[in-house]
């Protein structure tokens, strides 16, 4: 039976903290093998949406379907099983500080596979080698730089060979060269592992370079206001907020013409 082209389907999701609505009417499909960007200004709810997709924050309403299964309708055990399809790179790397880089990558392998210790060690070396971090295997997170922490976090994220990778602000705090290398690494992972990737970011050069689909969340209306790849949105969107964001403009055009063009 052929696999469905849609890996994750977000349907009419509303996210809120108590009475405060963060985003509503969020719907999109994540195509297998795509690099999907969640875009928007600071505080619009990009990371909150990501959290609801990886099991950290249940949506107030709506569904998140992973491989056709309603993720949040499952019990905790099943959600954990589904999570093994996910690899997550957190904004700060989120390496476990009491463990070495190698132990960070090894822990999921020790927990969820039956590989003997010497094989786990080999796998850890391979994963760290993929991100160019094999020399830091015995170092603690406090002993490495921010960029190295992100790469080590990425090695941990791919430890269980996930088919969906989530990146929360992967380029934040990195210099342009390291950021570009990380972009290359993301493309390599997509092509090498066949992974589908979700990136939460507002780093435009990165988004233009690697993302082929996306959604733009608006902080003012608390709704998505545009869908499409970052390049398409940059070149073709007539929505003032999207135009301003994609072109790094400090002012949002408010002409009647652009208002009339607004669409979701």
């Amino acid at each position, binding site marked *: 039976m052929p696999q469905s082209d849609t890996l994750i389907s977000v349907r009419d999701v509303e996210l809120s903290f108590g009475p405060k609505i963060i985003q509503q009417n969020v719907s999109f499909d994540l195509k297998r093998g795509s690099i999907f960007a969640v875009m928007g200004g600071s505080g619009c709810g990009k990371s909150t949406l990501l959290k609801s997709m990886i099991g950290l924050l249940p949506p107030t309403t709506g569904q998140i379907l992973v491989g056709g299964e309603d993720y949040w309708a499952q019990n905790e055990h099943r959600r954990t099983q589904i999570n093994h399809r996910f690899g997550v790179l957190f904004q*700060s790397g989120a390496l476990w500080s009491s463990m070495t880089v190698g132990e960070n990558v090894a*822990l999921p392998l020790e927990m969820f596979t039956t590989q003997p210790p010497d094989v786990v060690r080999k796998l850890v070396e391979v994963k760290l080698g993929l991100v160019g971090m094999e020399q830091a295997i015995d170092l603690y997170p406090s002993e490495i730089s921010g960029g190295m922490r992100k790469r080590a976090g990425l090695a941990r994220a791919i430890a269980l060979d996930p088919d969906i990778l989530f990146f929360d602000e992967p380029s934040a705090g990195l210099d342009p060269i390291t950021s570009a290398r990380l972009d290359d690494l993301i493309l390599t992972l997509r092509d090498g592992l066949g992974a589908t990737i979700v990136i939460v970011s507002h780093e435009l050069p990165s988004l233009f370079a690697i993302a082929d689909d996306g959604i733009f969340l608006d902080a003012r209306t608390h709704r998505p206001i545009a869908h499409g790849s970052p390049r398409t949105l940059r070149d073709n969107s007539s929505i003032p907020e999207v135009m301003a964001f994609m072109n790094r403009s400090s002012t949002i055009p408010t002409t009647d013409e652009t208002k009339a063009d607004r669409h979701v």
Partner: protein
Amino acid sequence: MRTKDLITDLWNAGPNALLIVGVVNFLIGAILAFVGLVELRRFAAEIYVTNLVGIACAREISAIMTAIIMAGRTGGAYAARISTMLGNEEIDALKVFGIPISGYILLPAILSLSLMMPLLYLYGTLIGIFGGFVVSMSMMDVSPMGYWMSTVNGVELREFAFGFVKAFFFGSFIALAACRVGLMAGRSAADVGIAATRAVVIGIVGIIAMDAVFAVMANALGI
């Protein structure tokens, strides 16, 4: 639970605390002996200072003082550590992988403090009695052996057993409260400070409240 984490926590909650627990209990024993001797001398009952220091340390003071030290030292550290992990998204990373927080973060901490507190209590009691002995030797006319024999005769083993059991519950309470406060904390640097403070305050107040309950129960049971 990783053995390495348990050993680290055991070391931090036990051997690393020996100096501060020893110093405080020594001084408490010395103060009790000094105050006791001054008062008991008026009734020519100085020798009973051995009972005063021994029973007070074994039954109440060492358990409470050791627990207060550990609430401030280790309880605060647990809350700060867990809330920092929360802020660094380390807890989120565990959740996403489906690695149980209870086993990997909480259990080593709770086990360590619960197991080490009774041992620290015993150590603190002996050091407290030694503090009383040092002061008594300089203030009253009794031989070291006489002081020791009077202590052995005056302090029953059940006083130690009572303090030992209390210390276990105090240690468990401090660790549980600190872990809960840490997990409930916010994610900013200020929240780490707030969590540490809250863990210490809850720990100290809880220990004293629990001690009151233990005292009532002991009275009811005739211990």
